[in-house]
């Protein structure tokens, strides 16, 4: 996969979509193509988050630690993004990511992402909008589940 295809991939995600094309390309150029073997723990809940990963190929199991052992909450695959919360701030990982197969990713580090955002106030505003929407959704879900119970 060439840089151009990676740029295409990056562009699909809302948090990167409002960046100017040159910046998307810069982000792709400065990101790292990283392959994980099957059964590899990409990161653990509680770790400091340093990067997010765009999955190019393979599947990943997301689990959260509970007193009764890890609880699988999700499985992610091709063209999905994981760990993106980490690149917004100093939030520790909320879940553990383990590869189920050989996984190919594009690793975008927090430092690079932030330094690109810092130069682009428009993209920052867009980012705030996305986060606000997510927050609203979470709140709505939360109150729904409260009502149910």
């Amino acid at each position, binding site marked *: 996969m060439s840089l151009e295809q990676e740029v295409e991939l990056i562009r699909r995600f809302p948090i990167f979509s409002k960046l100017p094309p040159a910046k998307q390309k810069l982000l792709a150029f400065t990101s*790292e193509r990283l392959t994980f073997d099957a059964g590899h723990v990409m990161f653990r809940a509680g770790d400091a988050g340093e990067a997010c990963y765009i999955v190019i190929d393979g599947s990943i199991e997301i689990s959260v630690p509970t007193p009764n052992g890890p609880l699988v909450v999700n499985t992610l695959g091709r063209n999905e993004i994981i760990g993106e919360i980490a690149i917004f701030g100093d939030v520790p990982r909320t879940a553990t990511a383990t590869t189920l197969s050989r996984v190919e990713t594009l690793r975008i580090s927090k*430092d690079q992402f932030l330094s690109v955002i810092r130069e682009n106030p428009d993209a920052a505003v867009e980012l705030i909008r996305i986060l606000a929407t997510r927050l609203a959704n979470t709140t709505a879900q939360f109150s729904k589940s409260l009502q149910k119970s």
Partner: protein
Amino acid sequence: MERSLFGFILRYSKREQILILPLVVASMLFYFATLDLPKAIVNQPISGKGFSQPDSTMPFLRFVWKLPDFLGGSTVHLFEGFAMERTPYLFALTISFLILIIISGLIKLQINTMKGWMGERMLRRLRFTLFDHIMRFPLPHFRRVKAAEMATMIKDEVEPLGAFVGDSIITPLFLGGQALTALFFILYQHVYLGLVALVVVVVQTVIIPKMRRRLLVLSKEQQLTARQLAGRIAECVDGVTEIHAHDTSNYERAEISSRLGRIFLLRFELYQRKFMVKFLNNLLSQMTPFLFYLIGGYLAIIGRLDIGTLVAVIAAYKDLPSPVKELIDWDQQRLDTGIKYTQVVEQFTADDLVPQSQQELIESPQLPQQGLVRASNLSLVDESGSKVIDGVSFEFDMAQHVAIVGAAGSGSGDLAQMLARLVPPTNGNIDMGGVDITRAPEAVTGRAISYVGAAAFLFPLSIRDNLVYGLKHWPVHEVPYEGEALKKREHWLKESERAGNSTLDIAADWIDYKAAGVSNAQELEQRILEVLKSVDLEETVFEVGLKSAVGPDQAAGLMDGILLARETMRERLNQPDIKDLVERFDLSRYNRNATLAENLLFGTPVGKTFDMENLARNAYVRKVLDDTGLSGDLLKVGYKLAETMVELFSDLPPGHEMFEQFSFISHDDLPGVKEILAQVSDIGLDRITEDDRNLLLALPFKLISARHRLGLIDEALEARILEARRHFSETLPAELRGAVELFDPQRYNSAASLQDNILFGKIASGQAGAGARIGLLMRQLLDELKLRPLVLKIGLAFQVGTGGARLPVADRQRIAIGRAILKRPALLILDQAGSVLDPASQNRLLENVLQCRRGSGVFWVLNRVELAERFGHVLVLDGGRLAASGSYGDLKEGSEPFQHLLGTA
């Protein structure tokens, strides 16, 4: 030190000054003769006086003088001379003149040489004395002095003093003698003309120095401001982090600028006055010939003076102003250097200078071995007059491990420094195994005690040299000298003695093996490895060793091992789960994890010739590229790369972190590259200038296909690069062979690091955790092959840089602690020495150090109270007083101040 410059000069160079005196007197006699002879030449053979007949003769070398009337007017006959005709007589006289000039020149040469020697010896002595004073300053004194100022004083400011020493006594004698001789000569020739000369000289000597007084003041002020400037610049360099952190660079610029402005004004005034004085001086000295021509000419016309005498007088007068002027210069220099000397000496004077006897060289002093460390009634008053330590008394066994704890400002650090005798107590005393520590020579305290502070200093040497630094008390094994070398050494020693310098041989082996508990260098090496373990430094040194490139001279005995490791590594890497982690160098394959440059050279550059930055401009590389038809293709790749870089990076601000990390082109070069790109679209790639071509061609060399993923190097191009690779090594001219170490699976590559040698390839990018896994594998392998000690040895040769800057602070502290342990002191004092380490490492270090010091004393000022649990005895300091002492358990139960520190009270 002598308070005045002349005191210093007389004390140390009297003998040499006196030795020069006879030469000065001799030179005056010859000088007089050279003044007198021209008169005879003009008057006798040239003007014909005494040669009235064609065959008249004159006596040559006739030594007959008619004494002046006031001496009785009789004549003295020494030699009647050879009779000569007019022309031979002219030859004889002029050749005599030439000989006289040569002799007096030779005498002057000798005087100058001797002066020079003397001056240099005195300069050497002065510098050494000043440095000696630095060595003897008490520690608190260093809070008041600036390192940069001290260094410039010793280096630059005393240099003119050295030059002046040679001139100090001889020059006034010589110049004065010369002036007096000339004046006497003129007076002797003609009284009136003599009087004219005398008047001018008197005016010169009275007026000019007066005008120069202001000059002196100015130059003194200038010196002071310049020295402060040096100090200030050093401050800015030291505080550069604060400057950037607080955006005060412009404030500092303004500050320096105002200082420079002051210096400018001072210097400007200085020059103006200097030139004014010069003008007056010149005027005066040129006025006199005018008078001579006028009066002397008139006297000659009326026949009261012969031409020869007039010529001689004018010649003699020409020599008169310059010695007088130089004499005035000398006087000014005397004042100037005198002031300089006093200023420098003031800076280097301290009332509480450590007496010389305390630092005397003692080869094997009686060191305290066992017994009690007893401090009684210790007090320390700091410069501001407040009591930092107040009446502290304690005792413990020298073999015990003692912790000392206290809040900030408790004085624990001061107590540690006192115990190490770095700071003398104001009151009270410290006894260690029967030795009075406050009075013992440094040879005892510096060997029986080790002290490590919170920010220990490393010298810019190798790790090993820093570790053994604490063993260098005296030249233990002298170097044997023989034949020519012995003669040189003796001369060297004599000169050192004459200048009052140290005569100890720096080339000797200074390492005191016995102090480290070993008997030779080999055993010491073993001991150093143990110490590395104790201070948790082994991994670091191992790592550093792996990353070092070792030349064949050092690598002897290692090369085979490394090649074996390379082979074993290759076998291990065949295992399916890790075989993709490393892409090995293969002559017949393009390595996508290596740069294009590495792929082309297929080797490691040695020196600058084939350095990445120089490749595109290198004539041979260009030839290889042209021969294989690659130039055009690479240029196209370079062009595309430049386009991409401009697109990606051109709107980032300068200094953006991404430039350094990712851009192929620096921010400063970007505009230039943009212009080149614009030009290319106008006139095409073929017609751009050579420089632009080089710039574009240099870019692709940095490309690593696997990492950069720009798709610029396709398989066809790879194949062509492989062809160029073959061409490169096959036609490599003999003179360039030394500039590159080609990759060869069977050969050790002395330009590459050990790690790269073993790997013989590149860690594949894009494999998660590849670096860590390969690193682990390599370690296992080196352990299996028993190569670890050799790698450590190479790591120990790593240069730590200025102040140890090439190592992290924690490692610097570890080395300092290792240095302190290596010399096996009776008492090891650690003053928060591990506080920069993270808590886990600190725990481990403490455990290891205490383990290795079992049965020997440790006195540890702790920054974390809970660590005191590991010590047999604990002292609690509060506000400079001993608040409690006892075992950890007892204190934890019963001592309120300790509970307070623990946070349990």
